[in-house]
């Protein structure tokens, strides 16, 4: 039995279609991350599961029970908010026991639940303090503790780490993952940060404009994005896209060309979807681009000049101007290509170099944005 099931969930605001017939099944104990750009509907979707937002049509099931008409408090969920939403006039212990107190549970039970949660989150020393005496990370842990004490069937997290600074965010990410392992509860986590999505999720749900673009394991989505949106959203630095034209499409493969890039042939593609002259997009991840000595015939390559170098220690990111060849949707936003080298590189700004890639690493997206290239193997974990 699935832990959370959404059936054709539809949500309209005045003149705005926020959620479009969302279907989703989440297994018991799964850690599901919903990710997407701002305004994609991910927070709205989380709130419909919580019951804080009503839906116009469809059904929300939790543990096989239809909870569409139920109040949030009756659904067996607990939510952690981006702003923590702690009650400032209560101590940490009172905050964490609030839900149980509202349900008129015996004091001994509340105390035990608060103590257990405080132990898990290492908050024993802070129980008598007020939220304003705590640091950001501690406050977020109290908010999580408040969720734990109610022992919910489903935890809902609404961008819980986005108010923390970078170092704390990494630490909390690890803590949340281990908390999930410890509790084994179903967790649904909303973020716009694709690093959080990649590192924490059992499955990622990519949302865009109120629709689910793709659902799958992080590495599956990374290796086999269903469309250009998912390909561009997951991965940092982002994938390089080249707008190209189909030269020929037949049983041997699809041949594409762009200004500044000689025709390349991508094999194993079902050519029925495209025909010569179609506008398509070639995608290539920054780590799949590499430096070549000289242009060899057969492997695609282009020449360019380095505009910017980012040294990260273990890797180097190069932004390369390859005009007339333009990368669209790139991180730099200037039409430069992004290259990621897994080492320190002595290449400086202004250096001229040759960039190549394997045709097997390239993705081809059709005129409608769908991925045309065949499945790539997912790196085994």
């Amino acid at each position, binding site marked *: 039995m699935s832990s959370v099931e959404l059936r054709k969930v539809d949500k309209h605001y005045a003149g705005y279609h926020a959620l479009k017939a969302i279907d989703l099944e989440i297994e018991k104990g799964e850690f599901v991350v919903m990710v997407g750009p701002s305004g994609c509907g991910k927070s709205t979707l989380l709130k419909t599961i919580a019951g804080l937002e009503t839906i116009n049509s469809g059904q929300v099931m939790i543990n096989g029970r239809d909870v569409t008409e139920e109040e*949030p*408090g009756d659904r067996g969920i*607990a*939510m952690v908010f981006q*702003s923590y*939403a702690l009650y400032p006039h209560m101590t940490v212990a009172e905050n964490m026991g609030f839900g149980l107190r509202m349900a008129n549970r015996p004091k001994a039970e509340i105390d035990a639940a608060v103590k257990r949660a405080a132990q898990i989150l290492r908050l024993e020393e802070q129980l008598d303090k007020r939220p304003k005496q705590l640091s950001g990370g501690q406050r977020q842990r109290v908010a999580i503790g408040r969720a734990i004490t109610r022992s919910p069937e489903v935890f809902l997290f609404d961008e819980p780490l986005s108010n923390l600074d970078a170092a704390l965010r990494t630490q909390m990410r690890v803590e949340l993952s281990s908390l999930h392992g410890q509790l084994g509860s179903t967790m649904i986590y909303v973020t716009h940060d694709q690093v959080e999505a990649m590192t924490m999720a059992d499955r990622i749900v990519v949302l865009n404009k109120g629709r689910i673009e793709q659902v799958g394991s992080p590495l599956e989505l990374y290796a086999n994005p269903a469309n250009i949106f998912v390909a561009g959203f997951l991965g940092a630095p982002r994938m390089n896209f080249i707008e190209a034209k189909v030269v020929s499409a037949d049983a041997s493969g699809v041949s594409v060309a762009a200004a500044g890039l000689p025709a390349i042939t991508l094999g194993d593609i079902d050519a029925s979807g495209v025909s010569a002259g179609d506008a398509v997009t070639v995608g290539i991840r920054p780590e799949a681009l590499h430096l070549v000595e000289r242009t060899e015939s057969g492997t695609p390559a282009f020449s360019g000049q380095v505009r910017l170098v980012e040294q990260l220690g273990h890797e180097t990111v190069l932004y390369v101007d390859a005009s007339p060849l333009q990368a669209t949707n790139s991180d730099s936003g200037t039409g430069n290509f992004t290259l990621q080298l897994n080492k320190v590189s002595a290449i400086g700004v202004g250096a001229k170099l040759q960039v190549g890639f394997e045709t097997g690493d390239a993705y081809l997206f059709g005129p409608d944005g769908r991925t045309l290239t065949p499945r790539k193997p997912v790196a085994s974990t």
Partner: protein
Amino acid sequence: MYPRPIPENAKVQRALYLGGVTLVVILWLLPLLAVMLTSIRSNEELMAGNYWGWPQKFSLIENYKAVFEQTAMLRFFLNSLLITIPSVIGVLILSTLTGFVLSRYPFRGSNLIFALFVGGNFLPAQIMMIPVRDLMVRLGLYDTIYALVIFHIAFQTGFATLFMRNFIAALPGELFQAARAEGASPFQTLRHVVVPLVRPALAALAILVFTFVWNDYFWAIVLTQSDAVKPVTAGLNNLRGEWTSAWNIVSAATIFVALPPVVMFFMMQKHFVAGLTMGAVKG
């Protein structure tokens, strides 16, 4: 921008400014000073025309004793408390309820209701003098304490609702969502989350309403007649009739009457805690 600070080195302007401020403050406090001074003077001295000079004889104790022994001020004072305290409590309860609903539970027509509450404040209440008096007569409440309590609660709740609604609306929305997600009913949310957080607003409102109701004279004389129900404001007027020449006693009674709002202010002051919602949400 106004008010612009006067530069340190503009000595003349500074002196003029200081002189002006002092003058205004003295003018402002003069009536109060006169009442205070008169309240400790003997009647003979007043008859002799010593209004502003240093009192030759201090009759502080005698005058204030006279207020309690020779006048019905204690009765009026009690009436005022019986009118004011229930009015304040009633207004606070009703406006917290209306403010909570109007700020957090929008329903069809809620904006219209809110507009009525706000708009009602713009009407001068005095135009209702005759209807309100008639209503109270027909209800059999005329010349009772209830008439004033009901009237003040009804007429103060409009402004108080505006005040509370805006204050509650300014609380972080996620607090309410969190409470709801944790299974708190609207009433539990009101009691355990809203009321503790709007304490400063309630204290401020309590002072405002208390002062207004306590100082009300107009409705006191419109809705009451007998000494048994008259509040202090109307009672003071009685005093003037009976003791036309005893201004020292009237002044002493006036000071006595003016004390409760001051006491109220100091009682409520500790609830004005700045940054009460700090720590609820980031930023």
